[in-house]
């Protein structure tokens, strides 16, 4: 057992810290948020130059074949630096394509250099957090399929070059069998995207698919059998957002601690008040408990034991989700009025924490999933 980072991981973490401090400061980020595109080509190229896009791509396809812990390090740094580029979306796209690597060699190689960006169009208006709740249809037609339906709140949907889309080739809306995954060029005929801002400074899109024709080449894996893959990649994404949240919480914790030492009221630092010392101590505990769960999730994210993976990742979503909520709210409260301003980085960290479970399932969703695993009732 070893909880330490490898030398390479430490280097990667330092590099990313320096990069975000230099290339992605508060003002730069504000301009990106306000820009029409909502993301920065320059930042994307910068991250690609650092090898970030190549990390999750298999070595055989010009990538680095990164492990879960490698990605933990990356996401922590991106979280702390409040990076709003379509990295997570692209990494998840890569995870889907890796499943059918022989078929998608070209796209994966392009992804490794940052040439293409992906978004995962899985959610629908009614589906909430259930990725099997798919009403969108794909009808077999000659040597391909015709897609019809609407995907909603697709993170970075309008910034992507290719969309990973779930659609039903068989069965009823919430059945796990009968779901297929397709790679659809974002500029394909019949695709229309409505881009909007999200509360945490990112972008999302609602995407309509009206008689979109794709060939068999667009199908990832076998028709109707995408559920286990969707479940696995979603868990991988969850492990990554847990790591990101830990990076954010660490930053929030440090900032708040500094503030408690610096801010004076009643002729003393507010950190001298025992009421606040206890709150700060609780924040410390939250961050450490969350870190433990995020490390566990990162180490298990690529596991080929689905039950163990689900059990661990849902537990991480529960615990990190609680911490994200508590740490974010406490940080604002302990800052007082200044915490409420958009000028303060801590407010933006808080907003990102607020978005924690909004796509990959809130605490209740993961409590339900956790308690439904057969292992929950097996009492040792």
């Amino acid at each position, binding site marked *: 057992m070893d909880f330490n980072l490898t030398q390479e991981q430490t280097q990667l973490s330092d590099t990313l810290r320096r990069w975000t401090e230099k290339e992605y400061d508060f003002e730069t980020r504000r301009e990106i948020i306000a820009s029409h595109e909502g993301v920065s080509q320059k930042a994307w190229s910068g991250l690609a130059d650092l090898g970030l896009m190549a990390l999750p791509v298999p070595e055989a396809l010009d990538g680095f074949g990164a492990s879960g812990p490698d990605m933990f390090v990356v996401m922590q740094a991106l979280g702390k630096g409040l990076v709003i580029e379509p990295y997570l979306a692209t990494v998840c796209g890569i995870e889907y394509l890796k499943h059918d690597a022989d078929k998608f060699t070209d796209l994966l190689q392009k992804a490794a250099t940052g040439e293409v960006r992906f978004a995962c169009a899985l*959610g629908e208006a*009614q589906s*909430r*957090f*259930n990725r099997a*709740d798919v009403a969108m249809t794909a009808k077999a037609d000659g040597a391909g399929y015709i897609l019809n339906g609407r995907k*909603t*709140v697709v993170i970075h949907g309008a910034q992507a070059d290719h969309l990973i889309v779930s659609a039903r080739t068989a069965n009823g*809306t*919430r059945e796990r069998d009968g779901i297929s995954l397709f790679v659809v060029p974002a500029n394909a005929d019949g695709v229309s995207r*409505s881009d*909007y*801002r*999200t*509360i*945490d400074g990112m972008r*999302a899109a*609602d995407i309509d698919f009206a008689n979109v024709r794709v060939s068999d080449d667009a199908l990832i894996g076998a028709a109707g059998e995408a559920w286990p893959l969707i479940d696995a990649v979603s868990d991988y994404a969850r492990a990554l957002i847990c790591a990101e949240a830990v990076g954010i919480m660490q930053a929030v914790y440090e900032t708040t601690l500094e503030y408690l030492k610096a801010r*004076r*009221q*009643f*002729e003393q630092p507010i950190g001298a*008040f025992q*009421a*606040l010392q206890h709150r700060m101590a609780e924040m410390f505990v939250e961050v450490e408990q969350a870190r433990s769960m995020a490390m566990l999730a990162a180490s298990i994210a690529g596991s080929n034991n689905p039950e163990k993976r689900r059990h661990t990742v849902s537990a991480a979503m529960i615990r990190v989700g609680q911490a994200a909520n508590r740490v974010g*709210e406490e940080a*604002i*409260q302990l800052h*007082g*009025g200044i*915490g*409420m*301003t*958009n*000028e*303060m980085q801590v*407010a*933006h960290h*808080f*907003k990102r924490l*607020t*978005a924690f479970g*909004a*796509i990959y399932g*809130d605490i*209740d*969703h993961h*409590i*339900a999933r956790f308690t439904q695993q057969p292992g929950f009732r097996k009492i040792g």
Partner: protein
Amino acid sequence: MNLEYDADDLAFRAKVRSFIEENLPCDVQAKILNHKRLNRQDYKTWHQILHKQGWIAPAWPVEYGGAAWSPVQRHIWEEETTRAGAPNIISFGVNMIGPVLMEFGNEAQKKYYLPRILSCEDWWCQGYSEPGAGSDLASLKTAAKRVQDADGHHFIVNGQKTWTTLAQHADMIFCLVRTDNSGRKQQGISFLLIDMKTPGITVRPIITLDEDHEVNEVFFDNVKVPAENLVGEEHMGWTYAKYLLSHERSNVAEVGRSKRELRFLKKLAMSYTSDGKPLLDDPLFARKVAILEAELMALEITNLRVVSADDGKSEPGPEVSMLKIVGTEVQQRLTELMVQAVGPYGLPFDTDFLEGGREHAVTGHDDAAPLTASYLNFRKASIYGGSNEVQKNIINRMILGL
């Protein structure tokens, strides 16, 4: 013990309810019920409707143009207006500076300012907090120096106020300023009324984390204030400030508003689904709503106990701190559960829609679009008006004596 309203109360309720139904402008009501942002005119319109009816100042005595309602009647009024979705009356005039002037102002000040507060000719804002003086308000530094020149006696004001709510709309600001540095910090503070149009005043917006413009910084650079704008005696401002703070904390429980928001929460939880079933049928979610509803029921009765004990003569006591703590926690929890109720639809951030620039949200989910902004905004409730930590210190000092 009898927890029922009597017949007079019920008749009063019926009367005000029908007035509100007939007079509350529909567009303003729709904004409130749907968590959209109000503009200056929205507040003013409702204020003037109530002024015409003679109901703008429920607690003021009749001689000053108030309605002189009993505490229970005021409570009913608050419930009915919030239930219907009426805007809050901007409290800086009617609830804050008005009572201070009635108690400590001179005849000329009462005669001039009170009617203008009632008619909303003057929109007031509150200049208490400073960058270095928040919870420790008495450490404020904005300085006022008394001078005499050809125009007569004046104060020259220099310094900065901050977090000044809606100062961008205000005609007048009441300020705590330092007129003496020699004694304890609570001594040497004076209470000044300042016209926002006076040369030397600069208002700068502070944009909050929900990207709203609700608070401001107000800078004073050699601002010349006529000496007759001093309230009461020089250096005695802290006494008046404390009097005002006790009034600021009236209706802190916000029971009416929270009951309205609870209804909204339940509506959301009936229409948003998880696996095809309404969220309210999910025991995990229902449990949270039930716990919150029970807390709100308790708060309603606790609040009524405080209201009923109010004889109109003595100052509100430390129990108001309890109402502030629970009231704001309930409000915040409501916003939190609403965000949870809509799941992914808590993410889109649509300022255009919030500000009325577009009729429908980009996502088509009008009910969900404002909710996270509202959640973020309501973090303020446990910070302002005396933070909840400070309220606990008050309970300790005044009740527990630990």
